């Protein structure tokens, strides 16, 4: 689906990319449990969930038009597809990180001790953002530390080396790394709730031409949410299956879920999407991204990329809106209209 | 009648070193030219030039009065001094190679009756050179003399118009050598080949050849030997009463007195 072509024929087959992360595991589980097929059949379409191990690559592939939708964080949506001119709509606000991302220090329990250290993290990611926010609380600029870009796949292994004394990571790596001797979690996303948001985004043009895709996805998501929230045997089984898909055990997975604030209730998700807090969060994220040069060399101001929110609020360039938060489908789910 | 092959003022140089200096020759169709001369004089270099493997630094070569193309072809067969056969082919495969190339331009493999015919021909040629019991050996499993005979068989089966032989019988014992002499003389007679043969055996040169060329330096500077190249210092036409049937027939030398210059000059 080449982006930008406004007039698209309705299609029946769609590819959605996902990568391993606690807040996104419901998607592949739904596929395996037949929930995807159920909803897709209902709307006469076919949806394939494609696993991409490398998170960045999944977003890149979406940006390149190889995927119709992808699971991604709010910050990366802004800096990768949206900044790349790909008109993208966030249709499901799935959760926010409530401790799933954190800053680890060896040998100290105080974030202030990070001063001057080499901090290993995935640069320009939400980890970087978290670090900036953490330093802010201590009144330190980002330049107070030296960042070392580390691949998310290898950061757990790397942290076991005595060379590393500070790192920022997300789950499941974060949990693995916390087990290292003499290690403390000194700051986490629980300290900035609601700022690191996990989304499901789809190509705006595709969505426009195929609103059924949005409906089906919303249907899938909230049915799966309802199932996994249950404290019943079925709920446990669902979570165990997700753990397996994530390559871990149910205990560890439940641990990860406990630091993920899931919007299991569609109404809550709608409310979060409409809240002015989202605009504020996105402003912060945008300013941080711009300061880090994530909008590319061409962008001359933080306003270069436009974002729209439910109710008509627009942040940034209104002529170049490429990131749209859309509560239509969550709203339908809340009303039971799917 | 003009010559089959004419060399006009050929010079061969390697960097500073002059190997052949101003060699001019006319070689008649059907002649059997023996080339002798001291080691390192440039005999092999001369053959390489005629073969088209090397281009002379100066001078030109005419074949049938047209300049020689800068590459070799099936009109010129060769047996190299260091008998080089294809290591990946058995004796039979090595000899059949030439036949297959001609008859199957694309697949270069023969099938059915064609294959049988080629095989028979190759076997016959191998028998001529005494390798009939070693047909399936690879070159690495052969003795030096066997490899040399294989190289001869490989070249002869094509009956090239011009046959260039660089010490072809050097590694052979006298008995087989005599057989080879007979074989080459027979083929030369039957197919009117033109043969140019380098040899160190002066008796062989005179008994087989219709013409004997001696390649050597005319001048020699003991302090800078590389500054002078070799050229044909003697050129003897031999007339035989009849075409020799056996190589052992002694030819008569037409020129008067001959002194073979054997000064080694490098």
């Amino acid at each position: 689906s080449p982006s930008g072509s406004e007039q698209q024929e309705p299609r029946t087959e769609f590819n959605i990319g996902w990568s391993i992360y606690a807040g996104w595991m419901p998607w592949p589980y739904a596929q395996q449990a037949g929930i995807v097929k159920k909803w897709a059949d209902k709307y006469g379409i076919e949806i394939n969930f494609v696993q991409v191990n490398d998170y960045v690559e999944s977003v890149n592939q979406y940006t390149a038009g190889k995927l119709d939708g992808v699971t991604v964080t709010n910050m990366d949506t802004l800096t990768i597809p949206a900044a790349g001119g790909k008109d993208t709509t966030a249709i499901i606000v799935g959760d926010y990180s409530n401790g799933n991302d954190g800053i680890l220090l060896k040998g100290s329990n105080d974030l202030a001790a990070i001063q001057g250290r080499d901090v290993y993290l995935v640069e320009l990611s939400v980890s970087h953002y978290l670090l900036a926010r953490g330093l802010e609380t201590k009144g330190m600029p980002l330049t107070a530390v030296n960042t070392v870009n580390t691949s998310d796949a290898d950061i757990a292994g790397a942290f076991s080396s005595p060379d590393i004394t500070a790192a920022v990571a997300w789950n499941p790596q974060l949990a693995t790394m916390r087990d290292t001797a003499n290690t403390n979690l000194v700051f986490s996303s629980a300290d900035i709730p609601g700022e690191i948001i996990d989304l499901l985004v789809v190509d705006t043009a595709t969505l426009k031409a195929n609103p059924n895709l949005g409906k089906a996805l919303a249907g899938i998501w909230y049915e799966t949410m309802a199932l996994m929230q249950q404290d019943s045997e079925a709920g446990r089984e669902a979570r165990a299956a997700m753990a397996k898909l994530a390559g871990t055990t149910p205990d560890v997975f439940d641990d990860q879920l406990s630091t993920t604030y899931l919007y299991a209730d569609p109404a809550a998700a709608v409310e979060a999407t409409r809240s002015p807090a989202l605009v504020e969060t996105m402003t912060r994220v945008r300013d941080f991204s711009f300061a880090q040069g994530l909008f590319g060399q061409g962008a001359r101001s933080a306003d270069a990329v436009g974002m729209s929110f439910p109710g008509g609020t627009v942040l940034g360039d209104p002529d170049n809106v490429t990131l749209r938060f859309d509560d239509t489908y969550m709203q339908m789910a809340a009303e039971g209209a799917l | 009648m003009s010559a089959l092959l004419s060399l006009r003022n050929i010079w061969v140089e390697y960097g500073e070193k002059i190997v052949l200096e101003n060699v001019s020759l006319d070689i008649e169709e059907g002649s059997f030219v023996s080339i002798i001369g001291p080691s390192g004089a440039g005999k092999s270099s001369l053959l390489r030039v005629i073969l088209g493997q090397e281009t002379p630094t100066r001078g030109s070569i005419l074949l049938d009065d047209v300049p020689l193309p800068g590459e070799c072809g099936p009109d010129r067969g060769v047996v190299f001094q260091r008998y080089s056969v294809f290591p990946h082919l058995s004796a039979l495969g090595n000899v059949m190679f030439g036949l297959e190339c001609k008859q199957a331009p694309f697949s270069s493999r023969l099938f059915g009756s064609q294959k049988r015919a080629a095989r028979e021909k190759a076997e016959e040629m191998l028998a001529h050179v005494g390798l009939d019991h070693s047909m399936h050996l690879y070159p690495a499993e052969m003795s030096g003399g066997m490899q040399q005979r294989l190289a001869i068989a490989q070249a002869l089966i094509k009956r090239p118009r011009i046959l260039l032989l660089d010490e072809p019988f050097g590694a052979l014992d006298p008995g087989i050598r005599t057989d080879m002499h007979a074989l080459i003389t027979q083929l030369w007679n039957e197919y009117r080949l033109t043969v140019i043969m380098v040899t160190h055996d002066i008796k062989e040169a005179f008994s087989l050849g219709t013409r004997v060329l001696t390649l050597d330096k005319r001048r020699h500077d003991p302090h800078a030997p590389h500054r002078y190249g070799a050229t044909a210092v003697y050129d003897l036409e031999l007339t035989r009463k009849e075409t020799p049937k056996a190589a052992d027939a002694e030819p008569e030398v037409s020129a008067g007195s001959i002194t073979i210059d054997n000064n080694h000059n490098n």
Partner: protein
Amino acid sequence: MRWVNRRPRRGNRMLLGAIPIILLIVLYLAVAGARHAVNPADKILPLPGAMIEAMASLVTEPDQLSGEYLFWADTLASLTRLGIGLAISTLSALLVGLVLGILPPVRATFGPLVTGIAVIPPIALLPILFIAFGLGETAKVALIVVGIAPFMMRDIAAHIGALPREQIIKAQTLGASSWQVMIRVALPQAMPRLIQAVRLSLGPAWVFLISAEAIAADIGLGYRIFLVRRYLSMDIILPYVAWIALLAVVMDLALTWASNRLFPWAHGADH
């Protein structure tokens, strides 16, 4: 007797070859044991018991979800990809190497291009590769091919380019055209070298396969390694790596054996 002349017998050879590998295993056990003495929960160098335990379910129990024996499914998937990748690389290396090696004008035209491609690290261009080949099997095979084929092409081309010039000349005096020189002289003599090139490429081929599976896959040895790496599950990674090494060594031996069988003339070089 001089060391250059001591040729151990077959049996002794195997014994000798086993020594350093056994030593290495012993060394590992010692270091792992030491680490576990300090921290019984050490994940980096697991003890054999932990590895066996972790592997047992993968090897012998079918996965609840897919019903597959994961270890064997991973192996099959990876070997298929590797096999296809190696086959394509080998074939294209043979074709391109042959043409580059024997035809100077082609070498002049495409040699620099092949060199250029050979030295460009494909993993730097991953986004483009995946965009060009999608996220399916094609991309994984393509990464292997892009990774190893140019190297093999250059190796074959160099080998053929170094064939004694006498042979090429000789073939031509026997009436061979360029085509015939290529398929009757160069091709067969390139074959043993090709097998050697495949052997040398096995290592890089696995590297590229694993990299590809690390990026997008839902099955495969490399996928599993990357999946569990998040949890630092060395008790699965190490047996998987050992298994990969074993598979590769078996392939290596099979190739050596095949080369000796198929091209005796290239190996009988005794005197």
